[in-house]
C-alpha cells in the first residue's frame, strides 16, 4: 500500500511540475473581528495548485504516482477570504490513504479547467459544483445544472445565498 504525506507529495510535485505549485496563504473562515487577531485561520498542509495547471497535476497524480481512483471533489466557500477552494481527493487502487490537491479561485470569477475530458470520474462532481456553487469548468462537455432546474437563479450552497425569503420561497413571510 503506497503512503504519501502531503509534504512528500509537495516535494514530488515541485520537481515534476514546478510551475504548478503556489504558496498557500492561511484562509480566514470566520468574519474578521473588530479588534485583535483574526481567529479561525485554516491552513491545510496539502499542495495548492494553480488553476491552469490543475489538469496536468491531476493527470500526473494518476499516471505517474498511480493514484487512479478519483474519489471526491469538494468545494468550500470561504466567504471571508473571498475564494472557493476545490479539494480533489485521489486514492491508489491497491489501497492506502488519500493524496489531496487543492485549488483556489476567486469568488467573483470562479473558473477552473475541467478534468472530465481526461478523467470521466470528475463529471458529476463538477456538475454538482457548478450547480450549487457556480464554479465554471471550462471544457466540460455537458456543464448543466444537476440538482436544481435549469431556470433556477443563484447558487444555493454559497454562503451568501439567502437562507430564507428568496423569490422561490415567496416573500418575507417565509421562515
Amino acid at each position: 500500500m503506497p503512503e504519501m504525506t502531503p509534504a512528500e507529495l509537495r516535494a514530488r510535485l515541485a520537481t515534476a511540475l514546478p510551475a504548478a505549485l503556489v504558496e498557500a496563504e492561511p484562509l480566514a473562515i470566520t468574519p474578521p473581528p473588530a479588534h485583535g487577531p483574526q481567529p479561525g485561520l485554516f491552513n491545510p498542509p496539502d499542495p495548492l495548485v494553480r488553476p491552469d495547471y490543475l489538469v496536468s497535476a491531476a493527470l500526473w497524480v494518476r499516471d505517474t504516482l498511480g493514484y487512479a481512483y478519483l474519489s471526491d471533489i469538494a468545494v468550500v466557500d470561504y466567504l471571508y477570504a473571498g475564494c472557493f477552494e476545490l479539494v480533489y481527493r485521489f486514492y491508489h487502487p491497491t489501497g492506502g490513504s488519500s493524496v489531496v490537491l487543492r485549488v483556489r479561485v476567486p469568488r467573483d470569477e470562479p473558473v477552473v479547467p475541467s478534468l472530465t475530458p481526461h478523467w470521466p470520474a470528475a463529471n458529476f462532481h463538477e456538475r454538482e459544483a457548478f450547480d450549487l456553487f457556480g464554479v465554471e469548468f471550462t471544457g466540460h462537455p455537458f456543464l448543466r445544472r444537476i440538482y436544481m432546474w435549469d431556470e433556477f437563479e443563484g447558487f444555493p450552497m454559497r454562503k451568501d445565498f439567502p437562507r430564507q425569503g428568496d423569490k422561490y420561497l415567496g416573500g418575507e413571510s417565509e421562515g
Partner: protein
Amino acid sequence: MLQTQELQVNIGPQHPSTHGVFRMLVTVDGETVVDLKPVFGYLHRNHEQIAEANSYLQNMPYTDRLDYFNSMANNHAYAMAVERLAGIEVPERAEYIRVLMVELTRILNHASAVGFMINDMGAWQTPLAFGMREREKILDLFEMASGARLMCNYFRFGGVVRDLPPEFIPNLRELLRALPAYIDELERLLRDNEILLQRAIGIGILPPEVALSYGVSGPVLRGSGIPYDVRKAEPYSVYDRFDFDVPIGKVGDVYDRFLVRIEEMRQSKRIIEQVLEQLPDAKGGHINPKARQNVRPPVGDAYARIESPKGELGFYLVSDGSTKPYRYKVRAPSFINLTPLADMCRGYKVADIVVILGSIDIVMGEVDR
C-alpha cells in the same frame, strides 16, 4: 427505402423500476439504446446546506435519511468524520458494536438489492418478498438496539447511544443459523432460472479500466474485477482484526454484480461471527464517557469514508471552531456510481436499462441529497 429516425424516450420520473424519482432521457434507434442522459434532482432538498445550519449532533439523525436502507452505515461514516475532526477516541466495545451493525446493514441491503433487481427483470413481487424476508429479522434486531427499524440514529460521537440489550445476542445467533440457507436460496433464485440468466449474463458490461476511470466504488467496481474495498484498502474501526475475502467478478456484467453481492453477504456473516467471538473480551463500554456530544471541533477539516453497502461513502467536514459544521459534504456512492450509466446502457435494448440500473443499486435519497 424505409425512413427511420432516432426517437427520444423518457423513462421516469414516475416509473416502478427507477427506484424513486429518477428520469432517464433515452435516445433509441428501434429497440437499441443510442444514448442516455440521467436527470436527477426530483428529491433534492439541499441536504448539505440544511446540515450546515444544524449542530453536529443534530445532523446524526439527518444522515439516516440519505440512504434510508442503510442508516447505520451513514451514521458510521458521519460519526467517524466528526471524531476525526474533534479528536474523539472510541472504545473497543463500541467499535465492535458498530461493525456488527454495519455488517448487518450490508446483508439487509444486498438481500433487498438482489430482490429489487429480480423484480426489475419482471419477476413481479415474489422474489422481492424473498429478499425482504430476512431483512425483517435484521430490522427487528435494529429495533431492539436502537428503538427504530429504519431511521436508527444509533451512533454517537465516541460510540453508540446504548449498549446491546440482553436479548440481542441470542436473537442474532438464531438469525446467523438461518442465514446460510437463506443466502443459498436467494442465489438459486437467479442461478437456476434460465430466463433471469439470459437477462443478466453479458448485459451492462463495465470493463475494469473503464470502471476505475469513472470512479465507481462498491459492488459495481468489484463486479468489474477490481478488488477495491475500503475495509481492506484503508482499514478503519476494527476491520483489520477480521478475516474475510473481497469477492470480485470476472467480466463486469449484471450477473457478476449480483454474484458479488451474494458473496458479500456470506463474508459479512463471517465478520459478524468473528465479532461475536471477540466482543466479550473487548475493552471499554458502548461509548467514550468523556466524549461531549455537543462538540466544538477546532478549526480544520476531516474526511472519513467507509465501505457502505453501496460503495465508498465519505463525509468531508470543515470546522470553523463553532458548534456547526462550516462545510458538510457527502460523497454519495449511489450518485457517483451513476456516472457510467450511459456507457453501460449504450448498445443494449431498452428493456435492459432497468436491469442495469437495478444492478447498480441506487437510492434516490442519497443520489439527490
